[in-house]
């Protein structure tokens, strides 16, 4: 029954969603022209750095493939991608979910990760209907993820801090099980660890605040989810091959 209702409503709601997103984008960009120019300059310089980093990665990838061949190790599993459109978002103060316009017809299954723009994690599929599916956003309190914190200047090379994230609605995400002794700073990147069945290295967000925990054992860390600052229209679902 739920599926039949979604079939009727998803097309008009999907179009409205797209239209509203475009309108919002235009209104916001109108008021932020100065900011956008500054951001553009910053992005240009970042882009130049990324080009050189990309070349290094290309070389490393070649070397990695060569070493895998030599060692006989199977390459990491790839994923097939399904494209979907968000047609409804629900923010009710206690939970955060959204509905997408593909479902069982595209072979979606509960537990599949939903990402957008450059592997930013948006949520996880929880319920699948014939032609639609319900996604729990990573900020929903029912969502826990195994994550790792990267790019700290205080950590020795290659060492990553593992943690568990829990959705905290408009406060973003809270990181749990990070010992007080660990040195973590605001602005560091949080990504999936790959230990809970999700692909590793999907971008979750950036650390906003770090406090010493009241109990004296674990830190209290707030994470700003990456998707919060973006306009979500189309998303991708990673399907294991």
């Amino acid at each position, binding site marked *: 029954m739920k599926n039949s209702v979604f079939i009727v409503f998803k097309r008009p709601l999907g179009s409205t969603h797209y239209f509203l997103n475009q309108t919002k984008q235009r209104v916001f960009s109108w008021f932020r022209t100065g900011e956008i120019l500054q951001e553009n300059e910053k992005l240009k310089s970042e882009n130049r750095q990324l080009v050189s980093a990309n070349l290094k990665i290309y070389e490393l990838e070649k070397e990695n493939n060569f070493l895998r061949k030599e060692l006989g190790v199977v390459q990491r599993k790839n994923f097939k991608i399904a494209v979907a459109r968000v047609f409804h978002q*629900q923010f009710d103060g*206690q939970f955060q979910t959204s509905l997408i316009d593909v479902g069982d017809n595209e072979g979606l299954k509960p537990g599949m990760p939903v990402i957008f723009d450059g592997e930013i994690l948006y949520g996880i599929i929880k*319920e699948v209907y014939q032609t639609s599916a319900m996604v729990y956003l990573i900020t929903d309190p029912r969502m826990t993820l195994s994550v790792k914190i990267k790019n700290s200047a205080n950590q020795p090379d290659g060492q990553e801090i593992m943690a568990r994230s829990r959705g905290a609605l408009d406060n973003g995400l809270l990181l749990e099980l990070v010992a007080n002794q660990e040195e973590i700073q605001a602005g560091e990147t949080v990504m999936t660890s790959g230990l809970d069945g999700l692909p590793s290295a999907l971008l979750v967000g950036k650390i906003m605040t770090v406090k010493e925990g009241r109990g004296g054992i674990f830190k209290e860390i707030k994470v700003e989810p990456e998707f919060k600052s973006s306009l979500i229209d189309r998303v991708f679902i990673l399907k294991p091959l």
Partner: protein
Amino acid sequence: MSNWRFIFVSAGIFLAEYLLSFFWPFLLRAELFIIFALAVFFLDSMRKINFAIIFAVAVFFDFWSSSTFGNLTLILFLTILFIFLIKRVMLVDNRPNFSALLWLTGFYYFYLFTKGILYNFGGPYIFPNLSIINLIETVSWVSAMLIIYKIASHEKKIPRF
């Protein structure tokens, strides 16, 4: 309040929630339809609205809720049952506005606590947000819904001859 006005206001709430989810998603920290439905059931002592209409609209909102189909309707009706019992035991019909505001806020929190159990059944209990700011927001939304209810239920009186 007539059946048509109830449906009209509910449709308006759905559209308002839909638009807010784009332009200001983190503003809406309350379920407006639930507050409105509770206000109608608590304040409409004349029972002008057909119960089947409330049920049908609740089912429609259930389709878009953030959990398995049926949970929202079930919790709403548990809360309505709770209101019914309170009204029977404590005779709280025809209360002044401020008292109605307090009662409705209480009923809404009862709804949220029940929802915490059912929406994550089998998992850890999800507590509703109990901060002062959230309480102020909830009271504001309840006041807004009370005003909408008062406006929607206002009917022209026919003068006596």
